[in-house]
């Protein structure tokens, strides 16, 4: 699904070097590496937000769910249907699914609240549902567990397990039990040159 070869990304004074790899379809790949290793950078390259050198092949549509949830000033429900709206899909066909996912992540009672006023964890849940609702081929989850409590992490694990046959997940997370529970493949990030 995603294949990288001789991939390098230059920042102002840094250069990240990524080992060659193939991210396989319908496998949950966990990206590991220390703070500042370039995990977010790699996901942002996959989302085509960043320029790179080398070869990157992606034959699927990719959605990036950022580390700090970016929420629009409207209800949680309206946030979730945004990708359906811009794709001109019939929202009513997705209603049951939205309720199902919201119930699973325990935010069903918040769907009509303004999402900007939710807590960080709740915002993250809204943004995750928004990222998966339109069935993209690949979903990139950047530290989705940061603001979540233990129970919520379990609920998210259930959701991902439920969807992994349809959606390929590439996940950055430092939460050991979450990772161990989901991981099919691991990809380590860490190569970095300081440019002078």
């Amino acid at each position: 699904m995603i294949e990288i070869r001789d991939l390098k990304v230059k920042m102002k004074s840094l250069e990240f070097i990524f080992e060659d790899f193939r991210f396989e379809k319908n496998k949950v790949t966990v990206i590991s590496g220390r703070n500042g290793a370039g995990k977010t950078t790699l996901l942002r390259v996959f989302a085509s937000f960043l320029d790179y050198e080398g070869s990157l092949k992606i034959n699927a549509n990719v959605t990036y769910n950022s580390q700090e949830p970016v929420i629009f000033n409207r209800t949680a429900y309206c946030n979730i249907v945004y990708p359906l709206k811009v794709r001109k899909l019939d929202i009513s066909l997705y209603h049951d699914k939205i309720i199902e996912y919201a119930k699973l992540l325990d935010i069903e009672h918040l769907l009509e609240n303004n999402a900007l006023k939710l807590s960080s964890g709740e915002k993250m849940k809204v943004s995750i549902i928004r990222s998966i609702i339109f069935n993209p081929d690949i979903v990139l989850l950047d530290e989705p567990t940061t603001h979540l409590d233990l129970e919520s992490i379990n609920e998210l694990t259930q959701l991902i397990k439920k969807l992994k046959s349809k959606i390929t997940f590439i996940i950055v997370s430092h939460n050991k039990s979450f990772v161990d529970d989901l991981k099919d493949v691991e990809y380590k990030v860490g190569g970095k040159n300081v440019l002078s």
Partner: protein
Amino acid sequence: MILESIIEAFKLLISFDPEIYSIIFLSLAISILATLTAAVIGTFLGILISISDFKLKRFTKKIVFTLMGIPPVVLGLVVLLLITGPFDGMNLLFTKSAMYIAQTLLVLPIIIGNIIITSEKTQKQILETATTLGASKIDKIFLLIIETKPFIFMSIILGFSRALSEVGAVMLVGGNIKGDTRVMTTYIALNNSMGEYSMSIAMGFILLSIAFLLHTLLARFRGDFYD
């Protein structure tokens, strides 16, 4: 002496002198029209500049930021040269239209610049998120206008403050003609130069009250956003 002037000023205000009220009205009318014009053009240009990637982007931004601080009198001079030079045939010198044009040009960079500065980070995150969720360019422009509404309002109010409070541009292109192109600030400047402080204080008081109202409004928009 100061106290006397202040008392005199309040007497003037409640005297309902038609000249004073027509001056206030003209000030507000010109500044509001100029700000609205600049708001429509400026919001569009500001958002366009921030979401587009083009060669001279940095340079364009620098020009806009420089123009944000242009002394009104210099801008007035430029407009004056234009309307007495290439656009001489339009008979704009010392007219309300010339004042409107000058103020629009004065406010435009303030609105564009503020929209660019204040919402750059928000814009970037919103744009990336919208892109990754499948939004088209038009979708993104609409989303940005909606999501950065508080910034846009703030920029517009800042622009209006500047239009209402400047003297230089309206003085130069309007000429401060009594009963025609005289506005609050040029009125203050004139009365002061004639030693009529109470008139100035009265007008100054009104300007301050309007500024106070505007900034109360501004605080509300800020509050809405940062809540």
